[in-house]
């Protein structure tokens, strides 16, 4: 949870911990990236104006380095350009502040589901690769890779 406003960070952390998530909070872009590198986060909530306008840069970094983490962007002053940039950089969702906590919770649940599916897909792909490798070592015909699983339905 990355937001420069301490009050927002605290309230969101308290709320999501109350409903069963483990929540870490950070106030700047460097901390987001170092924490994300050290943990396998299912969901990241990132304010667009984290330090200056760095939220979108953080999104791009997270999309590249932690593609399984679903990133939800938050903004109190969205512009069309910001939303389009978030779309192009791979945001899972974009939520305008002040947000409805019920709606945000639903989005976070969906984002966590997507993370789960991506992890499952990774496991299945790795198993498929292993089976193919073993098969080719034995001179057997390798199996066709499984279809990519679909994620992030509305």
């Amino acid at each position: 949870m990355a937001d420069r406003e301490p009050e927002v960070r605290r309230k969101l952390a308290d709320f999501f911990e109350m409903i069963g998530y483990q929540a870490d909070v950070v106030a700047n872009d460097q901390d987001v990236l170092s924490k994300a590198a050290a943990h396998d986060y299912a969901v990241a909530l990132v304010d667009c104006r984290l330090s200056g306008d760095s939220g979108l840069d953080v999104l791009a970094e997270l999309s590249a380095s932690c593609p399984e983490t679903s990133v939800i962007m938050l903004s109190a002053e969205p512009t069309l350009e910001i939303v389009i940039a978030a779309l192009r950089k791979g945001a899972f969702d974009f939520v305008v502040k002040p947000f409805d906590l019920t709606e945000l919770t639903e989005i976070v649940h969906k984002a966590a589901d997507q993370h789960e599916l991506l992890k499952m897909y990774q496991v299945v792909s790795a198993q498929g690769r292993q089976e193919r490798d073993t098969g080719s070592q034995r001179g057997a015909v390798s199996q066709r890779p499984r279809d990519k699983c679909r994620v992030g339905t509305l």
Partner: protein
Amino acid sequence: MRTHSILVVDDELLIRDLLYDFFRGQGWEIAVAENGEKALEILRSRQIDLVLSDIKMPQMDGLALTTEMRESYPDIPVVLMTGYPSIDSAVTALRCQVVDYITKPFNIHKLYKVIESKVKEKEG
């Protein structure tokens, strides 16, 4: 190299004709439809690498088409274009997992670069 295929969905004949001629000129296979329902008919009958759709259309609009496609054709990337951009429609497009959101009027050469890069990304 395999010929790429694109489905253009727009209720404006002028845009469909312009894009048809342009993509044909680039060696692409192109299909056109005037609304989302016609687009789904085409998707059922032939292979398409990417869908380029207008948002505001009668009957089934571009957002409804994209929502339907996420269920039935999740691997086909969608680029949406609109002459009436708004934060709400851009957020909805993001939630529908479109790969880009282009505002009209567009530069056709820049649009082509976007489309070409998205098809190449899909091919991996």
